[in-house]
């Protein structure tokens, strides 16, 4: 039996990945752009195609994290959280990971497989449960576009409304 040769070079598989990262809070707001640029450059060297990103924002961490930098354990309660989404060859992932591990300005990072579309949903809730409709068919479902893409003109629901609607969902 002859081995089958794969002559289709164009069929090189790439996947969509996302890197979420936490920058140390000691970076100043002004220097942040430079560090993000450096991070993107270091990832970009691996032949990736950037799709989208979110500039890091200062957040209060849910718990204290520590990271050893220069043989000293540093504790962090705050950090800058940002992410970049890109398309890359799965084989390049290991080297991207090593690059991120070597970056002293990153407390933690997370590489996940994701989809090209925007995955952040606007909190739209179906109302049929709240109205006591029990036929199991959603009638007035406020749904997002295909792939969770939030529509620009959709008015954001207020916190109180969201709470009310989730309560309705939770009630058996």
């Amino acid at each position, binding site marked *: 039996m002859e081995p089958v040769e794969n002559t289709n070079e164009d069929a090189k598989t790439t996947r969509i990945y996302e890197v979420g990262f936490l920058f140390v809070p000691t970076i100043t707001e002004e220097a942040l752009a430079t560090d993000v640029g450096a991070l993107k450059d270091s990832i970009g060297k691996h032949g990736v195609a950037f799709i989208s990103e979110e500039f890091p924002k200062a*957040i209060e961490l849910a718990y204290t994290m520590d990271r050893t930098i220069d043989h000293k354990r540093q504790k962090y309660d705050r950090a800058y959280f940002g992410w970049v989404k890109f398309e890359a060859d799965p084989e390049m992932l290991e080297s991207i990971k090593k690059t991120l591990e070597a970056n002293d300005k990153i407390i933690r990072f997370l590489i996940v497989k994701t989809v090209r579309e925007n995955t952040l949903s606007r909190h739209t809730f179906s109302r049929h449960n709240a109205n006591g409709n029990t036929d199991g068919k959603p009638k007035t479902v*406020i749904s997002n576009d295909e792939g969770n893409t939030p529509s620009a003109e959709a008015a954001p629901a207020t916190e109180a409304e969201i709470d009310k609607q989730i309560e309705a969902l939770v009630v058996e």
Partner: protein
Amino acid sequence: MKQDYFAANNIKYVDYKDVELLKKFLNQNARMIARKRTGVSAKSQRSLSEAVKRARFMGLLPFVAK
């Protein structure tokens, strides 16, 4: 009638960064609410649990809350 929130809203990918959404499926101790109570399908619950764990790792959600 229980309804899968994710199916009803056409959410195919539960994003770990969507903290406000994830919080709706956690109780006061930051533990996940059983799908028996929320009505989430088994498949969505698995995605949700993955997202919650990722959010916890990144410090967006606590592992435990008082």
